[in-house]
């Protein structure tokens, strides 16, 4: 996580021209939402083919995924340990000399598999914008201040109970180029692993009652309202810390594993 300013990837693809208005994009999203409600089905994941998110148009597969029984390597996941992740990496507010600007917050929760078992000693990675909605990334050209005391990258291992915990700054919303006057709701990117590689996922955690939810095609690509809600953290005063930080709780449930759990997946060892 050093030399962050030298690690930016290359120029973006040009598919997100700001040609539509918010009203046009909102009308597209509303039509998809009505059509979904009429089906009576329940979707739990985002649609890959979701035209209101313009960048998805040429990047979604057109064929249904092919069923494969997980086997061999797919039934397992990489192992991460304390040689990989320093405990201090879970505190995004201490990576520089000074205190970052913004609302200091704690975000914590549990990573569970589809049967409710804790995902133990597994890697959780986060990245996010600063309080002004700016990423430390060459490609982020939003003219909000870079905070020299905030990089916005953290890692931790879940503990023996599947719990992760980060101390960070509440990120700000930011504009993007999907359409004219497009703004992303404030979010933290989460990358998580389960006990099997087929459970690998990357997602985004949001904050309660964000007025941008209804306007955001990435959030709305999850057509099911209850499924969308699962990405929204809960303010938890028991997590809030006296004269220090506000607290949010957010649990992550992975898809089911196909491997019979080993004792080492569920029993305590060194954490």
């Amino acid at each position, binding site marked *: 996580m050093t030399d962050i300013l030298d690690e930016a990837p*290359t120029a973006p693809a040009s598919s997100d021209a700001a040609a539509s208005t918010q009203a046009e994009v909102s009308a597209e999203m509303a039509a998809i939402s009505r059509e979904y409600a009429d089906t009576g089905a329940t979707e739990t994941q985002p649609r890959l083919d979701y035209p209101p998110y313009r960048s*998805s148009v040429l990047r979604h597969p057109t064929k249904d*995924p092919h069923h494969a029984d997980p086997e061999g*390597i797919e039934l397992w996941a990489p192992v991460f340990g304390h040689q990989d992740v320093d405990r201090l990496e879970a505190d995004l507010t201490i990576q520089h000399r000074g205190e970052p600007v913004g609302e200091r917050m704690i975000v914590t929760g549990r990573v569970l598999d589809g049967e409710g078992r804790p995902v133990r000693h597994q890697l959780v990675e986060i990245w996010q914008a600063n309080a002004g909605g700016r990423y430390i*990334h060459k490609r982020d050209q939003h003219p909000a201040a870079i905070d020299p005391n905030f990089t916005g990258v953290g890692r931790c291992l879940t503990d023996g109970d599947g719990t992760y915990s980060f101390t960070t700054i509440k990120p700000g919303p930011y504009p993007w180029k999907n359409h004219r006057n497009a703004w992303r709701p404030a979010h933290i990117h989460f990358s998580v692993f389960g006990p099997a590689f087929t459970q*690998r996922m990357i997602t985004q955690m949001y904050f309660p009652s964000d007025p941008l939810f209804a306007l955001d095609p990435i959030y709305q690509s999850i057509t099911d309202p209850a499924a969308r809600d699962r990405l929204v953290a809960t303010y938890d005063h028991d997590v809030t810390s006296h004269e220090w930080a506000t607290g949010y709780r957010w649990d992550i449930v992975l898809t089911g594993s196909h491997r019979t759990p080993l004792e080492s997946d569920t029993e305590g060892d060194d954490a």
Partner: protein
Amino acid sequence: MSRPAGDLQPTPGQTVGPFFGYALPYDGSSDLVPPTHPDAVRFHGRVLDGAGDPVPDALLEIWQAGPDGAVPRAAGSLHRDGFTFTGWGRASTDGTGHYSFATLAPGPTAPGSAPYLAVTVFARGLLNRLFTRAYLPGDDAALVADPLLASLDPERRATLVAAADDRGFVFDIRLQGDGETVFLAHG
């Protein structure tokens, strides 16, 4: 709001977005072994969109057995001490949509099975990750006998088999359109 107690419905995925480049790749993330390792092979290719254009902001992860077919159980993928084979790596695509790993060729995880690398694809514009497999060429009998490959017509099957080159294997990923890669659902 949020998740009621006892709700074990899966958390939805979301796109990795455009700004992962300073967060997810790390020094050595694409080198499962040092490229100078005597048995190192290069596993590389391009990620292409539905217009055939390169995807310069994709992230790939591979997860694989060792040459002996054993599933690696050693930690250290982020630490990369240069000696421990952890079986896992991460690479972002460059401005030409190209990715590259240095690794060891996996062996069969069961006698007679076809060796493959499990591959996960993330990208801006891709609303959830995609899973696929990159089978290694060479053992035709094992490839013909593979249940997944056997369930696909020949044209689609070919999208899952890497091609040998002078230093290793080439595996292109087409997200959409002609030659669209077979992506997998594990249900």
